[in-house]
C-alpha cells in the first residue's frame, strides 16, 4: 500500500480533528479522511436529569457557543412543556442571542479563521494568530476587537447571568426581565457593533478582495462544492438565528423543502462510518450516496454561507447591502466557494448587530412579564436555533415528572461534517503531490475546513482536546522518508 | 486481609448514638447475646451527627454496608437529632439507589437503650443481607481528605493529618502484665 500523511490535530478551532491522507504509489493523494477521534455521550448521561437543567447542562457541550446550546435547550423546554413565553421574553432571548452571534463571529474572524486571510495563508505560523492580526491591522483595531467583544459579553452576562454558560433560560420565558438601564446599554452596544461590523467588512474588502491571489484562492476549484444548503429563515425567507422554519435549497438554488424543526427527523438523518466518532448528516429527501456532491447526493452544508444561500436575503439594510455585494461579486447564489464563508460571516455579524439594535428599541423589551409557568405535563420537545456554526437541534422526551428519558442532539458541525470531509479530500488531492509536504501546504489543507469554523467538540459532543500534529511520509514499503511535525 | 484467600465476609460500619443504640449494644454484651462479628460500631453522641460523608467514606474505605442506629422518634436525648438523621437518610437512600448501590447496604434503625436483642437481630439480618449482595465493588481510586487534595489509597499515616510524617517508629513495648514483674 502507499504512504500516509497524518495531520493531527488541526489547530485554531474548537475541538479535535485529524486528517489522514493516503498516497498511491505515484505519490498522488489516493484519499484523505477526516477523523473525529472523540465522543462524549451527553445524550446518554442527560437521561434521568431534570429537564429544566438541560439548557445549563448542554451549554457545557461547548464553551465557545454555550449560548447556542442554552437557547436551543430553552426553546426545547417551551415545546416540551407546551408553553409560549410572553412576547418580552422572546424578544430578550433574541436580542441576547444576536449579541452572542456578533461576538462569536468576531472571535472567529479575528482569532481563529481570519488570520489565514488577514495575516496570510503562507505567513509564518507564529504570526497566524490574533497577535499577528493586531500586528497587521494595528493595535487600535486589536483593542477595538477585544473591546467590542468585552462590551457585548458583559451585556450577555448581565442579561443571562453568565456569558460562559448562561443560566437565564426557563420553559415559558427567562428568569429575569431587562431593566431600562440595561436596555440602554444594549442599544449602545448594538450601535458600536454595527459600526464594528461595517469596519470588519471594510477590512475584508481591503485585505482579501483587493488581493488577486486571495480571490483566486477563494474561487479555486480546490475549495468548491456543489451541495445542498440548510438554514433557518423567517416568514419572509430572511436569515434568522433565533427562530423560524428550516429551508433547504438545492445546488442550483431552488427550494427543496421548508419545514418546521419539529419535522427534522423526516428530513435530516445521520450516517455512521466505522472510522470516525463523528456522524455525518444528510438529507433524507435525497438520501446518502457517499462522500460526493451534486444534486443526487444528500450531502448539505450549514453555517454562514449556507444560511445566505438557503435564504432570500437579510432582514436589515446594511447587511442586505453586503449580502448583495457578496452574491454579485461571487457570481450569484448559491455561492459554492467554501472560503467565502469568512465573508458571509461578516455579513451576518452586521445583520445580528442591526437586529440587536432593533430589539433594543422595542417598547416590549423592558416589560416585567417574562415568564409563564408551565401547566401541562411535559412529554416531548424539539427546539432549533442557528448556532454561529450552523443549524442546532435539541430533542428531549421526559417522564411525567419532567425527568429526561431520551435526548437527541444534532449540532452544526455534524450537519457540515460530510461536506467538510469532501473539502478535506478535495483540498488534499489538489494541493498535496508526493512526499514533499510543507507547512504552508498543510495550512491550506486545514483552511479547507477552518473556514467552516467547525467545532468538533460540539459535533461529537466530545471532550475537545488538542493533539500534536504529525505528518509522516512513508514510501510504499512503509519506511519513513520524511517526518514533519506541526504540533 | 485480602479476601481472595477466604470466602467473602461482609464488613459493615455502624454509627450508633451513645444514648440509645450504643447503650443497647452494651446491653447486648452484658446479656451475652451472640451476633455476627461483621459490624464495627462507631460511637457518636447522636444519630443527628451522622454526616452523609461518613456513609460514603465508609463505602470508599471498603465497607460493604453501613448501619445507622438512633433513639426511637420522640426519645432522642437531644429532642430531634434522630429526626434530622431520618431526613438525611431518606434522601441519601434515594441517592445511593441512583448510584447503583443496593438498598440493602444501608439501613437506619431506631434501637432504644432497652433493646439489646434488637441490636443482635439487626446486626445478624444486615450481615446476611449484605453477604447475599456480595462485595460492594467500587471502582478503585484515591479519596479526597479534609483540607488536602487527594491522598494515595492506603497511605496509613495520611489519616493522622497534621502529625503525618512525624510518626515515630513503633517501639512496640510488649510487656505482659505491665511492670508488675519489676
Amino acid at each position: 500500500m502507499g504512504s500516509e500523511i497524518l495531520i493531527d490535530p488541526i489547530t485554531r478551532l474548537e475541538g479535535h480533528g485529524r486528517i489522514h491522507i493516503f498516497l498511491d504509489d505515484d505519490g498522488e493523494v489516493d484519499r484523505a479522511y477526516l477523523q473525529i477521534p472523540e465522543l462524549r455521550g451527553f445524550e446518554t448521561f442527560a437521561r434521568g436529569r431534570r429537564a429544566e437543567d438541560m439548557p445549563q447542562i448542554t451549554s457545557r457541550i461547548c464553551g465557545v457557543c454555550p449560548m447556542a446550546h442554552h437557547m436551543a435547550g430553552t426553546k426545547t423546554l417551551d415545546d416540551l412543556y407546551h408553553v409560549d413565553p410572553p412576547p418580552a421574553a422572546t424578544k430578550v432571548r433574541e436580542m441576547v442571542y444576536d449579541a452572542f452571534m456578533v461576538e462569536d463571529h468576531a472571535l472567529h474572524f479575528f482569532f481563529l479563521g481570519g488570520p489565514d486571510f488577514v495575516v496570510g495563508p503562507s505567513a509564518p505560523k507564529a504570526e497566524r494568530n490574533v497577535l499577528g492580526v493586531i500586528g497587521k491591522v494595528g493595535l487600535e483595531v486589536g483593542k477595538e476587537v477585544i473591546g467590542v467583544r468585552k462590551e457585548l459579553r458583559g451585556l450577555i452576562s448581565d442579561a443571562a447571568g453568565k456569558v460562559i454558560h448562561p443560566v437565564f433560560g426557563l420553559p415559558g420565558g427567562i428568569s429575569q426581565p431587562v431593566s431600562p438601564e440595561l436596555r440602554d446599554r444594549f442599544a449602545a452596544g448594538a450601535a458600536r457593533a454595527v459600526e464594528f461590523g461595517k469596519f470588519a467588512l471594510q477590512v475584508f474588502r481591503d485585505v482579501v478582495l483587493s488581493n488577486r491571489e486571495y480571490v483566486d484562492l477563494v474561487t479555486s476549484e480546490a475549495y468548491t462544492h456543489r451541495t445542498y444548503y440548510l438554514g433557518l429563515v423567517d416568514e419572509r425567507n430572511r436569515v434568522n438565528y433565533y427562530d423560524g422554519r428550516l429551508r433547504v435549497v438545492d445546488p442550483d438554488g431552488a427550494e427543496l423543502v421548508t419545514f418546521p424543526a419539529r419535522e427534522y427527523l423526516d428530513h435530516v438523518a445521520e450516517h455512521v462510518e466505522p472510522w470516525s466518532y463523528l456522524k455525518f448528516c444528510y438529507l433524507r429527501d435525497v438520501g446518502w450516496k457517499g462522500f460526493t456532491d451534486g444534486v443526487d447526493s444528500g450531502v448539505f452544508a450549514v453555517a454562514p454561507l449556507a444560511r445566505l444561500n438557503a435564504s432570500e436575503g437579510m432582514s436589515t439594510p446594511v447587511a442586505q447591502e453586503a449580502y448583495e455585494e457578496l452574491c454579485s461579486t461571487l457570481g450569484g447564489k448559491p455561492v459554492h466557494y467554501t472560503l467565502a464563508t469568512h465573508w458571509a460571516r461578516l455579513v451576518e455579524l452586521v445583520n445580528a448587530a442591526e437586529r440587536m439594535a432593533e430589539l433594543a428599541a422595542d417598547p416590549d423589551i423592558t416589560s416585567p412579564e417574562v415568564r409563564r409557568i408551565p401547566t401541562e405535563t411535559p412529554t416531548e420537545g424539539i427546539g432549533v436555533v442557528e448556532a454561529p456554526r450552523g443549524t442546532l437541534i435539541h430533542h428531549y422526551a421526559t417522564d411525567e415528572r419532567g425527568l429526561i428519558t431520551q435526548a437527541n442532539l444534532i449540532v452544526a458541525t455534524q450537519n457540515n461534517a460530510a461536506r467538510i470531509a469532501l473539502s478535506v479530500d478535495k483540498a488534499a488531492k489538489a494541493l498535496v503531490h508526493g512526499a514533499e509536504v510543507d507547512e504552508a501546504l498543510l495550512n491550506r489543507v486545514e483552511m479547507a475546513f477552518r473556514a467552516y469554523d467547525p467545532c468538533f467538540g460540539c459535533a461529537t459532543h466530545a471532550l475537545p482536546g488538542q493533539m500534536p500534529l504529525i505528518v509522516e511520509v512513508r514510501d510504499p514499503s512503509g519506511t519513513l522518508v520524511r517526518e514533519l511535525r506541526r504540533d | 486481609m485480602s479476601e481472595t484467600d477466604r470466602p467473602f465476609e461482609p464488613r459493615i460500619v455502624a454509627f450508633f448514638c451513645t444514648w440509645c443504640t450504643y447503650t443497647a449494644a452494651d446491653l447486648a454484651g452484658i446479656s451475652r447475646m451472640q451476633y455476627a462479628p461483621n459490624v464495627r460500631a462507631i460511637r457518636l453522641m447522636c444519630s443527628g451527627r451522622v454526616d452523609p460523608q461518613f456513609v460514603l467514606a465508609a463505602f470508599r474505605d471498603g465497607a460493604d454496608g453501613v448501619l445507622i442506629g438512633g433513639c426511637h422518634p420522640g426519645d432522642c436525648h437531644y429532642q430531634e437529632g434522630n429526626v434530622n438523621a431520618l431526613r438525611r437518610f431518606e434522601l441519601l437512600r434515594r441517592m445511593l439507589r441512583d448510584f447503583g448501590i443496593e438498598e440493602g447496604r444501608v439501613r437506619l434503625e431506631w434501637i432504644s437503650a432497652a433493646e439489646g436483642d434488637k441490636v443482635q437481630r439487626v446486626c445478624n439480618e444486615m450481615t446476611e443481607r449484605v453477604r447475599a449482595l456480595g462485595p460492594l465493588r467500587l471502582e478503585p481510586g484515591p479519596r479526597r481528605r479534609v483540607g488536602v487534595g487527594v491522598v494515595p489509597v492506603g497511605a496509613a499515616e495520611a489519616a493522622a493529618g497534621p502529625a503525618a510524617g512525624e510518626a515515630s517508629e513503633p517501639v512496640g513495648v510488649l510487656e505482659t502484665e505491665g511492670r508488675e514483674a519489676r
Partner: protein
Amino acid sequence: MPEGGLNPKAVSTDGGPRIGVYVCHCGLNIAGKVDVKAVVEFAASLPHVTVARDYKFMCSDPGQELIQQDLRDGLVNRVVVASCSPLMHEATFRRATAAGGESPSHVQMASIREHVSWVTADGDDATEKAKALVAGAVRRVALHEVLEPRQSPVRPDVMVVGGGIAGIHAALTLADAGKHVYLVERETTIGGHMAKFDKTFPTLDCAACILTPKMSAVRTHPNITLWTYSDVVSVEGYAGDFRVRVRHRPRYVREDLCTGCLACIDACVHKQGKFEDEWNEGLSKRKPIYIPFPQATPPVVVVDREACIWFKTGKCPRTCVDACERDAFDFEQTETFDEVEVGAIILATGYRTFDASRMPEYGYGLYPNVYTSLEVERLLNAAGPTNGEIVLRDGSRPRTVGIIHCVGSRDAKHNLWCSKVCCMYSLKLAHMVKERIGAEVYNFYIDMRTPGKGYEEFYDKVLREGVHMVRGRVAGVTDEAASPEEEGHLVIRAEDTLIGSVRRIPVDMVILAVGIEPQPDAQEVRRLFNVSCGSEGFFTERHPKLAPVSTFTDGIFLAGACQGPKDIPDSVAQAGAAAAEALAMIDRGHVTLESSTAFIDDAACSGCKTCVGLCPFGAIAFDEDRKKAAVNEVVCKGCGICVGACPSGAAQQHLFTDAQILSEIEGVLEYV
C-alpha cells in the same frame, strides 16, 4: 493542614502523637475469647503507636498506674484503652491520663468486651474485630485536640418534684443542710400514697404517725417553698443553672389566709357529700369544697370548679364565703406562674397502681365486693370512709376474705416485673383483717417474696395467726355458685400447686393486690426534664449499680418509685441519696461542662444559617452585623446535629470532628 481543615488544636502541644495502647484482659471476660497478645502485637505495628501493653484489669490502680508511668516517662502522650465500654470507664481513664500529666481529652477507648468478647462466638473472629476497633481508636486519638475541662457555677437552690414520702424526705434533708428547696406537688396536699395507708409493714407502726410530722415540718421549714396543686410546665438550662417554670392551679381559696378551720365545708349549701372522693378511692362522697384528709398539708380547702354551683350556675348564696372569718375566698383566682432558677432537680414523681379492671376475670367493677388493696387501705384507715371499719358496700362484715397477689405483676399479658411490695402489704392486710374482724383470710400467691429486714419474720407471724396460704395463680373470680355452700358468695378459682388440684374457695370479700406502675404521664415528664426511661416507663438511672439516683442528664436526680417499684424504706433511703448527690454538686460549687461541644470556625462561616434553626437548645446565635453564627458552648449539649448539617464544614464538634470520625472509619476498615 491548608486552610484550617482540621481543628487547629488537633496537634498535641509537644509535637507528634505518641500513642500508648493498653489492652485489658478484664480477667477472662476479654482474654477468654480475644487473643490479647495478638491484639497487642497488632497495635504496636500501627502508626504513631510507641507503646502497646496488656494487663489483667486496666481499671485497677496498678492498671491505671501503667498508663500514668508511661505518660510520666514521656513514652506516650495519647492513650488508647481497649477494654470495656466507654460508657463504663471513659471517665476513669480520662482521670488517670490527667493525673499522668496529659490532657484528659487525649484518651480513646475501644470496647472489646461489650462489643466483642461478650457477643462473638468464634475466638478468631473476636480477635479480628478487636484489632479493627483498636485501629479505629488509634487513628482517631492521633487527632484528638487538647481540651481543658470547662466549668460553670452551680446555683444553690434545688427543686424537688413530687411530694410523696421520697420527695418530702429529700426536701427536708436538703433544707436541713441549709439549701433552699422548692417542693412542687400537683395534688392539693403532699403525702402521696403513704398518707393513704393506715399501717406500714413489717413494723405495723401507723403511717400517719411517722408521716404527718414530716409533712408539717415541710410546711413550716424556713428553707422550703411548698407549692401544691402546682406542676412544672417548662425546664430550660443545664446542670447548675436550670430555669423552671411552675404553674399554680387556682383553689379559689387564698392559701395565705385559710387556716384550715373547715367551717366553710360545713356551711356549704350541699348538706352532705355528693361527689366522688378521689382520696378515698371513691369509697365516699365529698362536697364541692373539701380537704382531702384532716392532716392535709397545707391544710387549705379547695373548691372543685366542676362541682361548685356558683361556677356552674352563678346562682348560689355562697354560704361558704360568709362562714369564712378570714375572707379567704377568691372566686376570681386564675392560674398563676412562677419561674425559679435552681442548680439541681430531684424527680420524686412516684407511681400509680395497676388498674384492676384490666383483668376482668377478677371481677373488679363487676362484683361490688371485689376491692383493690388501696381501697382496703382506706377502709382500714381511721381517717378513711368507714373510720377504720372493715365493712362491705352493703354495710355487712365479711366473714371470709381472699387476697389475690400479683395482680397485674409478673404477668406476660400485663407487667412483667415484680412490684416488690405486694407480698408484704398483702400479708399486712391479712394480719389487720384478721386482727380487726377475725375473718378467715386466704392469700393466693405465686411466690412469697419477703426479702428485707424483719420481713420473713412478719410472714412467719402471719402464718402463725392462721392465715391460709394457697400457692398458685388465681384463674378467676365468679359469683356463679357450683354448690349450695357457694351460694351468695364470691368464688375464687385457683390451682393449688402444692396439693396439685384446682380449688374453688367461696369468700365474702376479694382484695386484689394491685402492682406498681409508672405514672400515666411518665413519658411527658421524661421529655420535660430530658431524662430517659425504659420501655416500661420507669425513669432510667445513669447506672443500675454505680449511679442509681443519677440520670443521664447532669443535675437531675431520681428518688422513690418513679425509678422502679420500692417500698417506703427504700424510697426514703434513695431520697436521702439523691439529696446527698444534689448537695455534693452544690457544695462543689461548679459543674464540669460537656466537653464534646460544637464550635464554628468564624473565618469559615458563610452565614448561611443552616445550623441556627437546627439546634434544639438554641445554643447557636446569629450575628446579623458580622453575618456569622456562633455556638454558646455553655448551652451546647454536644449532639453535633449542626455539625452534620453544616454545608461548608465550618461547624465542628470537639472530640467528634469530621477528621477524627473519618479517621476512625478508615481505621476500622484499613487493616482487618
